[in-house]
């Protein structure tokens, strides 16, 4: 009896037991699809967050007043901020650092915007003329503020896309005026929609010169100083330069965060998330595997009788085994492929709600595990039964 004949026998047997075949396949399908989907969610979220941080530019450094490394971690209870930075420190850095390195003094704070009877609460991210380099936003229309406007503290404002939609829903806001904390500002631009990210909703934000923001908020302090190194290779050099420049006046009471460090913290968090999702995926594989195993074991007595009949009329051990191996492989592979299709299709469809990223290792692992379980529990009982004397197999209860 050749392999082709074994295939025909297996196909006939599968066809004769459609319900069992479908249930077995369902176990494989659910296991594979669940793993692919879950891992896709985990990876997708991780990629999105990592991407949005990396989008800021990997050669950015954030200089904050206060010692964050001494204890507690960022924002932790161990941080003591004795003295905030002012424009003087930004100027100092600007003068002492290389011309390739850009220094942006940053002021952040809450604002109330009014256009006629429309009122909107938002936050400001204020910087100098190099702000575009570090704020990671693209203009939809208009222009960014100039050096002269920074020096003069001009009342010009650039709106985030959702701020623009709220206050100027119909027409272009360029050249129009609005009230910011009671003062008149001119809109010179608005940004493209970015979507939310871990660094805040950039669409619900406005930009202006930091000098203007300081006047508006009634402070001389800066929230932070952002430094962009001329190239990513120079980040560590620039970091130590900054530390050397600020040390005489600030001692240890400041901290330089590189983008690398920020990314590291998030990646650690998201790595934990991925491990958790892999755990869930593992459990769903296990559940799927048990499902496959159950249906295989439930049908053992019927199948053992079938093996008894086949042996009684002359099937050899090889004939029995090849039939069952082929049956199990066909069910598992077909189920696995359908599972991959459903998992990938589901990931694609849900991508609008949750970021999804299909990973090859999840697909491969899910497929081989589910297929392996299906084949093992399909073949092993058959292997045992094929070694029985026909009469024992026929008597099997």
């Amino acid at each position: 009896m050749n392999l082709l004949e074994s295939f025909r026998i297996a196909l006939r047997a599968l066809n004769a037991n459609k319900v069992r075949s479908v249930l077995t396949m369902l176990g494989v399908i659910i296991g594979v699809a669940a793993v692919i989907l879950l891992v896709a969610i985990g990876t997708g979220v991780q990629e999105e967050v990592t991407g949005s941080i990396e989008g800021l530019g990997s050669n950015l450094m954030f200089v904050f007043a206060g010692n964050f490394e001494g204890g507690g971690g960022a924002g932790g209870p161990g941080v003591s901020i004795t003295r905030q930075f002012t424009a003087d420190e930004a100027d100092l850095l600007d003068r002492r650092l290389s011309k390739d390195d850009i220094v942006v003094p940053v002021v952040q704070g809450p604002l109330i915007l009014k256009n006629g009877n429309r009122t909107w609460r938002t936050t400001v991210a204020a910087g100098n003329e190099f702000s575009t380099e570090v704020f990671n936003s693209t203009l939809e229309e208009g222009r960014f503020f100039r050096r002269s406007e920074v020096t003069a503290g001009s009342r010009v404002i650039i709106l985030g896309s959702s701020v623009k939609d709220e206050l100027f829903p119909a027409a272009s806001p360029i050249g129009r005026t609005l009230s910011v904390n009671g003062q008149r500002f001119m809109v010179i631009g608005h940004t493209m929609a970015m979507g939310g990210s871990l660094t805040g909703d950039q669409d619900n934000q406005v930009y202006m010169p930091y000098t203007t923001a300081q006047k508006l908020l009634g402070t001389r302090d800066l929230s932070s100083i952002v430094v962009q190194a001329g190239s990513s290779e120079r980040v560590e050099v620039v970091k130590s330069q900054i530390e050397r420049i600020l040390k005489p006046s600030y001692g240890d009471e400041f901290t330089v965060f590189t983008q690398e460090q920020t990314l590291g913290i998030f990646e650690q968090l998201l790595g934990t998330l991925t491990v958790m999702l892999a755990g869930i995926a593992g459990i769903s594989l296990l559940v799927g595997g048990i499902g496959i195993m159950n249906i295989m074991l439930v049908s053992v007595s019927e199948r053992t009788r079938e093996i008894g009949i086949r042996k009684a009329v002359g099937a050899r051990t090889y004939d029995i085994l090849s039939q069952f191996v082929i049956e199990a492989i066909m069910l598992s592979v077909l189920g696995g492929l359908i599972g991959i299709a459903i998992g990938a299709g589901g990931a694609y469809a849900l991508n609008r709600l949750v970021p999804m990223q299909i990973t090859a290792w999840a697909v491969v692992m899910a497929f081989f595990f589910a297929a392996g379980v299906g084949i093992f529990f399909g073949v092993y009982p058959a292997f045992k039964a094929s070694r029985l004397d026909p009469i024992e197999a026929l008597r099997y209860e």
Partner: protein
Amino acid sequence: MGESDERDPAPVSDGITGVDATRCNGARVVLQACDVTKFYQLDEVEVRALRGASMSICEGEMLSIMGPSGSGKSTLMHIIGLLDRPSSGSVIVEGEEVSHMTPNELSAVRNRRIGFVFQSFNLLSRTSALANVELPLIYSGISGARRAKIAREALERVGLGDRLGHYSSQLSGGQQQRVAIARALVTSPSIVLADEPTGNLDSRSGIEVMSILQDLNSQGITVALVTHDSNVSAHAQRVVHLKDGLIEREEYVKNPIQAAQQLAEINAQGGDEE
């Protein structure tokens, strides 16, 4: 010899084998069991199903193995049908000793030389009559159109030419047993063995099955069957009686019941009543 003819057709021999039912009076021996025993453990009690049974099945005969339940007749049938292995003793199929054969060699002997009919039919469920009958041919390596043709002919031989595509569940018990008989004879075996072939059937279906077995026997096929029912064994030419795992005696039936005739009578009675 005249003396023994009057008393008993088989003379009693010495020893535990009891009656010597191993001669064929010149005819070829198709299948032979020599001093076969079968012991097995059942809840720590040793059951001695067969305690040394010897018998022969002669070419062309229709033989019945008879005995009460627990006499070991089904066990004997399974052993000579190579579905089970004896604890000791030997089985010889057409001159070949099978005890040293590998499981695969035994499969080949079952496939080519022995057709087996079970009390409970043992057809593949959710599988057509034709596919069930084709099954032994698959394992003989006969493929395609030829296999279907041989299987169809076998089903026609048992009067089921119009039920080829029916599943076992769509057939009556008698019809299922006829499919099983077709499956048993489809590889043209040297012998057809039937274990209580009428045990699960109503009397009329039972008679039909016996009629088919007798018909096959009249066409030259050797048939051996096991039964506890003397009405059934009366269809055979020779009856071997089994008791407590030993051959007790054998007898020749002078005028075996002709199942075809019985059927005709039943049909005639049915006609009268109408």
